């Protein structure tokens, strides 16, 4: 069924092919090619690309709920950040005695805040398996509870978008507080190693890049499988005529809840891969603006295509890196202008330009 879905998915084939090539070529260019060769790819670039790939996975997760189910989530940054914090907590515990205060049991910021012992919710994060479990479980659980309440009350459209913004804003304010026990406005940083591999090592960076590519490919294939199934057709049906679906005997709330939760888990995984590559997670990741930016990536790439969302995330973030380096003061205007242009001229995004019409 999955293979069948991919056979007719040209955009997805291109995306997966690019990822497959990148997984081979990028490590070679970084590790095997000598640094003075013109073909050498710097570790900085590898990490940057890896970061883009986690954004692309996040964008695919948003496209699944927005493009196919019509839920314009302006709070997916929260799920991404929660996944990131779960990974960050593991990385903090790995520092051990190598912190500034040399305390084997407490991360630096806790010593600084005069905490005597580890808060209860930090227990278990010393183990990678537990942290990985939380990477999926915490965003998934939040999405489940939030979605249960919102979808049961039949909150839709712009109201739902607004409360997703409120959700991520509330979390940002909460995580800024030192009392929360997540490092306050400094967040979690100064990570040393992951599973014993130094995060400064080129090979670790390359491995994280490869993992990000694999996660994006896996997330993409899973989402494609969903949208190509009868459930996917039902999702589009709910997007276009919710009442019809309900009177056909479908539990619309259950569909929304299941897909929204799945999407949040994907966002959490993306966040967990993001944090070791950028080396920091702080409450700014919960900023409402971040979540809006994700939606812009998807709109630029083309919603309800999945591969368009990934392409949009890669392109917009490449542009962002370029502009914030070359012309830092123009970036926000460029982003706003891009969104206006795409909405006016390319309602189906970049993917709409390239789309091969499916036979009628």
């Amino acid at each position, binding site marked *: *069924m999955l293979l069948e879905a991919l056979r007719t998915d040209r955009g997805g084939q291109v995306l997966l092919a690019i990822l497959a090539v990148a997984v081979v070529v990028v490590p070679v260019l970084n590790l095997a090619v000598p640094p003075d060769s013109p073909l050498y790819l710097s570790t900085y670039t590898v990490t940057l690309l890896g970061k883009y790939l986690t954004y692309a996975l996040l964008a695919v997760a948003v496209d699944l709920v927005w493009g196919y189910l019509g839920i314009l989530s302006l709070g997916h940054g929260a799920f991404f950040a929660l996944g990131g914090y779960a990974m960050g907590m593991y990385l903090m515990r790995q520092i051990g005695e190598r912190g500034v205060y040399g305390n084997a049991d407490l991360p630096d910021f806790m010593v600084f805040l005069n905490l005597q012992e580890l808060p209860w919710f930090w227990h278990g994060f010393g183990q990678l398996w537990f942290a990985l479990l939380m990477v999926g479980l915490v965003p998934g659980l939040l999405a489940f509870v939030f979605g249960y309440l919102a979808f049961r009350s039949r909150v839709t459209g712009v109201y739902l978008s607004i409360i997703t913004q409120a959700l991520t804003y509330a979390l940002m304010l909460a995580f800024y507080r030192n009392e929360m026990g997540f490092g306050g406005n400094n967040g979690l940083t100064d990570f040393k190693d992951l599973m014993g591999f130094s995060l400064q090592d080129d090979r670790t960076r390359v491995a994280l890049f490869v993992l990000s590519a694999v996660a994006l490919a896996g997330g993409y294939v899973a989402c494609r499988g*969903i949208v190509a*199934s*009868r*459930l996917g*057709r*039902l999702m*589009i*049906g709910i997007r*276009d*005529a919710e*009442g*019809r*679906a*309900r*009177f*056909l*005997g*479908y*539990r*619309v709330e*259950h*569909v929304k809840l*299941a897909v929204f939760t799945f999407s949040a888990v994907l966002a959490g995984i993306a966040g967990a891969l993001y944090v070791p590559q950028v080396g920091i997670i702080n409450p700014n990741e919960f900023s409402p603006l971040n979540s809006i930016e994700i939606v812009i990536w998807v709109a630029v790439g083309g919603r309800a295509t999945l591969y368009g969302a990934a392409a949009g995330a890669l392109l917009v973030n490449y542009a962002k890196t370029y502009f914030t380096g070359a012309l830092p003061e123009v970036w926000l205007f460029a982003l706003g202008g891009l969104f206006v242009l795409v909405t006016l001229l390319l309602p189906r995004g970049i993917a709409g330009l390239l789309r091969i019409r499916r036979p*009628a």
Partner: protein
Amino acid sequence: MGAQHEQWEYLNPGKTFAETLNLSHHTLLYVEGVSVSFDGFKALDALSFYIDVGELRCVIGPNGAGKTTMMDVITGKTRPDRGIVYFGQTIDLLKLDEPQIAQAGIGRKFQKPTVFEHHTVLENLELAMAGDKRVLRTLFARLTGPQRDRIEEVLGIIGLTDAARQSAGALSHGQKQWLEIGMLLMQDPLLLLVDEPVAGMTHQEMDRTAELLTSLAGRHSVVVVEHDMDFVRSIAKKVTVLHQGRVLAEGSMEQVQSDPRVVEVYLGE
């Protein structure tokens, strides 16, 4: 105790609605003393009527008579302030929500034709098909041979066999109405509620729709809400006239037409 137990029987997860349904009195739908008010406006005022198994009933009445509100109550969209609504002798519809009522065997066609415009005709019928509609089952669902045959059969009934692979959004207004009726048929409903099936149709299309609906009666009970009197005359055996949320008259078309009260509020104008 026994009666109480029976009333709750449909909640027993081991039993399907079809097993619970009791039609021994030959009446499929009971609506008794149903009142609905919106901000003081009485949309339905102690409305009562009954639909027999296999019956084709037309409901007419001027705008604001409560026709659509009546359908909303039966399908679980609106909760009445008072009254009872039963499906057969055993299933209390007021205790069920929209998807459960659909699963119990009531299909509803909306006033404005509502189909999934981005899907093909075939996909629309596939989504409507009776079966396990839970999330995981839907994710892994595949069409079986008999299901394909059933879709083919319904395509024939609604006359859209040639348009099967066409996108539903590209259909004409009349074809969309038929597709929606086809989607109801895929649900294998016992009762079809059809709201203004011929609005915006040509005379030819109207004739075909009349044929379609009369052919469905017998195997299904059909309730048609319609404004077009010629159309009602062409299909109706029994007509219910609503006025200000109540039943004003009920009987054959001739009886109803000669009722002076009906002439006054509706037909005479």
